[in-house]
């Protein structure tokens, strides 16, 4: 009997071991592409997870390389900000130091690839959403229209940034260089391209071609997003799409459209009062914030985050390389301006908790959260007032310009009495948008250089450099991996060093 029991046990063991098949294996670590497509088939609302994927991609850490200065979209605009005049580094050297001295834009460095990949991934992910829809027919239903509209909006957004990083937009006279080599275009099935056309688009199209793509995408987005209600400020809705349009049209000097969309975009948002202004720019719930990302314990990046680099009150990288305001810019902020309080003065702040936040001219704008859960802010209504003011000033409509600027400054420096000249608005942009990733693009579109080596400078000794307008280092090179693997771009197409 005992023998029989052994035989049964062993035979059972062997039988179980043979019971597996190829179909029952795989991984549950990830959702497979086939399953995802089937889930969209069964429930079209599941397409939202692809759309939401745009926004989580924009905050993912260390996707291109393992550095903590790779944390998505805001890392790209932050390092661009470091290249300008307005952020003065102090104390040590760390992430961003090579950007500060314009020595990180060459093809072999990770920065080119980080920026390139950030935006091209958005474009390809947008295409995979667009490819779910029939060509030539607009979908019915506000949700479906909203998803498709967001895909077009994010694509326009991405091409705009690629254009801005990888080419000098204006010539010495300030005119748009529409014939200059720009970036490849990756078509979706709804773009109705032949294979040959699609291949041709892989080359460095002209700025004009890329502009046409952006404007077509913006038109689609504005049409489709009309009537869509977003679930959270993570998403792009009609107001944000208009904000993107305003940002883009300002860059390409289409003042009428910039003003129109900026004016429409900021309706419904309320500018920060003093309390909110000093609350640390870390909550997208603030009614001035139009678009951003609400971080939770599931998405935050700790040391690889905006706050780690930009918040001097924090134990992150700002505690090694302090982020200060340029002394000259600080001196241009009137004492009555609430925004002066977002920075230490020349004496520093003896009361401050950290060495960085005690430092002269240190920024106190970006606030501290002990759990690193500061939100990412991409767009604020203040920017829209400034776009409108500048565009109107450029159009010589000084009354409209001044009104727009006054609407903003009523919350910032109520005693301001001036007129909104272009210069004045550009200065207000530097003050209002300090550290939020705008200064590099403003310098480029206005054909301006920088000089950090002035009397009384507070820039780090190793960063007291001057970079004239149109210097080659203002433009990033196409990443080497693109040159190596894209047959339509050759070494001759590379931006000059």
């Amino acid at each position, binding site marked *: 009997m005992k023998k029989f029991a052994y035989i049964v046990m062993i035979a059972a063991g062997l039988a179980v071991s043979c019971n597996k*098949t190829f179909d029952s294996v795989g991984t549950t670590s990830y959702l497979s592409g086939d399953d995802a497509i089937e889930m969209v088939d069964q429930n079209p609302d599941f397409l939202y997870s692809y759309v939401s994927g745009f926004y989580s991609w924009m905050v993912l850490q260390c996707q291109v390389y393992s550095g903590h200065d790779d944390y998505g979209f805001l890392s790209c605009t932050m390092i661009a900000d470091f290249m300008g005049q307005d952020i003065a580094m102090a104390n040590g050297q760390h992430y961003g130091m090579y950007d500060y001295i314009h020595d990180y834009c060459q093809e072999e460095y990770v920065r080119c690839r980080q920026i390139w990949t950030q935006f091209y991934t958005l474009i390809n992910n947008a295409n995979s959403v667009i490819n779910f829809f029939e060509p030539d027919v607009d979908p019915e239903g506000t949700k479906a229209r909203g998803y498709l509209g967001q895909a077009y909006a994010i694509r326009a957004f991405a091409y705009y940034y690629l254009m801005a990083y990888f080419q000098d937009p204006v010539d010495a006279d300030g005119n748009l260089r529409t014939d200059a080599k720009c970036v490849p275009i990756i078509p979706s099935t709804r773009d109705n391209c032949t294979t040959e056309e699609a291949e041709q688009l892989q080359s460095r199209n002209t700025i004009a071609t890329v502009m046409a793509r952006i404007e077509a995408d913006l038109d689609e987005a504005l049409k489709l997003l009309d009537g869509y209600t977003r679930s959270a400020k993570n998403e792009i809705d009609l107001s944000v799409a208009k904000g993107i349009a305003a940002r883009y049209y300002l860059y390409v000097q289409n003042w009428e459209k910039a003003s129109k969309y900026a004016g429409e975009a900021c309706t419904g948002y309320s500018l920060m009062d003093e309390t909110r202004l000093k609350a640390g720019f870390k909550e997208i719930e603030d009614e001035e914030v139009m678009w951003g990302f609400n971080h939770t314990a599931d998405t935050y990046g700790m040391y690889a985050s905006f706050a780690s680099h930009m918040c001097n009150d924090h134990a992150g990288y700002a505690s090694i390389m302090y982020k200060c305001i340029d002394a000259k810019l600080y001196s241009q902020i009137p004492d009555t301006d609430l925004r002066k309080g977002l920075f230490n003065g020349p004496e520093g702040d003896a009361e401050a908790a950290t060495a960085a936040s005690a430092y002269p001219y240190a920024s106190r704008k970006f606030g501290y959260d002990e759990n690193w859960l500061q939100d990412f802010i991409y767009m604020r209504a203040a920017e829209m007032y400034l776009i409108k003011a500048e565009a109107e000033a450029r159009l010589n409509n000084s009354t409209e310009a001044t009104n727009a600027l006054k609407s903003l400054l009523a919350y910032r420096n109520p005693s301001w009495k001036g007129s909104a000249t272009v210069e004045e608005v550009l200065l207000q942009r530097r003050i209002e948008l300090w550290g939020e990733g705008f200064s590099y693009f403003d310098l480029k579109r206005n054909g301006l250089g920088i000089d950090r080596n002035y009397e009384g400078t507070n820039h780090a000794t190793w960063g007291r450099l001057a970079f004239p307008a149109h210097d080659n280092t203002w433009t990033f090179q196409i990443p080497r991996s693109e040159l190596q693997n894209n047959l339509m771009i050759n070494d001759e197409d590379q931006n000059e060093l």
Partner: protein
Amino acid sequence: KVDQTIGKRIKAGLNVAYSNTNMKQFNSSESSNYSNIFNYAQNMPPIFPIYKYDLETGERLYDKDGSTLYDWGETRPAATNTNAYGQLMTSKYNTIRDNISTRGYVDINILKDLKISINAAYDVFNTKTERYMTPVGGDAKEVGGRGTQIVSRYTAINANQLISYTPTFGEHSLNILVGHETKSDNSYSMNGSMTKFVNQSVSDFNNALVYDGLYSSSSSYFLEGVFARAEYDYASRYFLSASYRMDGSSRFAPKNRWGSFWAVGGSWNIKQENFLRDSDAVNLLKIKASYGTQGNDNIGYTVVYQDLYDIIRVDGEASLTKVFRAAPDVTWEKSNNFNVGFESRFWNRLTVNADFFIKKTKDMIYLRPLAPSQGDPSEQLVNDMDMQNTGVEFEISADVVKTKNIVWNISLNGTHYKNAITKLPADKPQDGYQTGNYWREVGGPVYQFNLREYAGVDPETGLPQYNKYDDEGNVTLVNKVSEATLRKTGKSPVPDLYGGFSTSLNLYGFDLSASFAYQIGGYVIDSGYMSLMGGGDISDNWHKDIFNRWTPENTSTDVPRVELGNSEIAQTSTRFLTKASYLSLRNVTIGYSLPSKLLERAKINTVRFYLTGDNLWYLSARRGLDVRQSFDGTIGYNYSAIRTVSFGVNLVF
């Protein structure tokens, strides 16, 4: 353990074993950040203290219970709020593993020469890992401590069913085997993290306040194979064998799942021939040759044929990020091996074995980079590119002295081979192309370095110089590495010769042995040295060679000047291409065995005392350059082999 015979023809057995392992590990990463203790040790300037000191008296400080206080560098300009050593000593990283291992078999002898065997092996590993980073200082200080608990279970089933037929006809014997085999691996893991621990010394989650992530996943692998093998033996002199197998792997798409592989071989045991059988001088002489194909599906991915999306949790909704690009066309990587060699032993003292081999790897699986404008992930697995290793292996062992009380043996083994690409990926320029720091071309090694040429220091300025070539091949000197020209170096990490040698001596009960590993030739990029030879910054460490840097007084040197923040001072180029030759003393053992006469009365067979040391000494081109873990000629901040010295007693009853 149970073995049971049932009747005359059936035998069955079952063996169950259990083991338990407790491990305390480094709470440290392998990356290039400040929590990696190896990185920290190399790159942290030694002026920064590990411990807290009284700034007035210079005395070490302790807390009230007398335990160590670490200097976490709250105001240190470099690596603020870190102390890799303090983190190591105050954090936990413990793993407990239970392993149950079961083996079962049934053998059925149907006829004298015909046997059916069924074998199964089932292993279960249950593992619990706990990591806890202290709130006292370091990375987790801000969040009040961070803990991770990981529970995982891994099972592996291997089963085969074999029919063997082993007839003998006079001096001819045959061994024919057909079989079926399945492998099935399943793994599951759940891990959770929390922060803000109430009692700083308790790492369980009931003691923590803030949720920081909770994940679980499982994955499985299945392999099925059928095979047949025939072996023929004539008078123990001539041997022939042939085999064939087909394997299906769950990693590949259904249409590419199955691969078939075969082998043939033969050998001649000359010692068994009449003219050598009685020779005392020749104890063994055998020549052999074989040719066969093998498959490899061990590529580090569970499934390769579907896109994979990571599900990120955003406001209670799924958010998809593509993390893997489907590669439905990928199938088995194959290698064709040709071997010819001999085995020999003479005068019972000298053993000489040697093999010549050609190993051709076909349809190599690798991640092909795509243009990053295709979006992330900008790489895709493909089977493309063939390469070949051609070389020899030898082993010589001699008992130099062999008497009753003294035996002294010396052994040497080595391998020399040449690595060459035989087919380039179809989509790449067929006259060669650059990838990373390498140049790929037919006939060249897979990892041939392709670098800018360092041309010394400009004696005027102290800046590094590199060669820039124009189309005619004329050279000009440039100071920025990015302006210099990438050139094939003809150098690769493949050594000219590598292997080991050892010696052992037995002398009146004492035994002494030493074994060495060596490598001659091959190159690495010494990135560790590069990071220690930069322009300098308050957070940088320097190699002592920096004393030889260019200064207005010291103009004839090959070390450029130092310059705060100038990244051009030390860049990847031929300057840091370094010979990868090394010699390491892997083990020394000294032992003494008590004379057996003494032990007889105590009914003990042997008593041996020994002292043994591992990884005692290592020599390479630069002190601190450990090339042993490098296959592609790069080095990182890896764990070096750990030196251990131990004393022991062997008792055999």
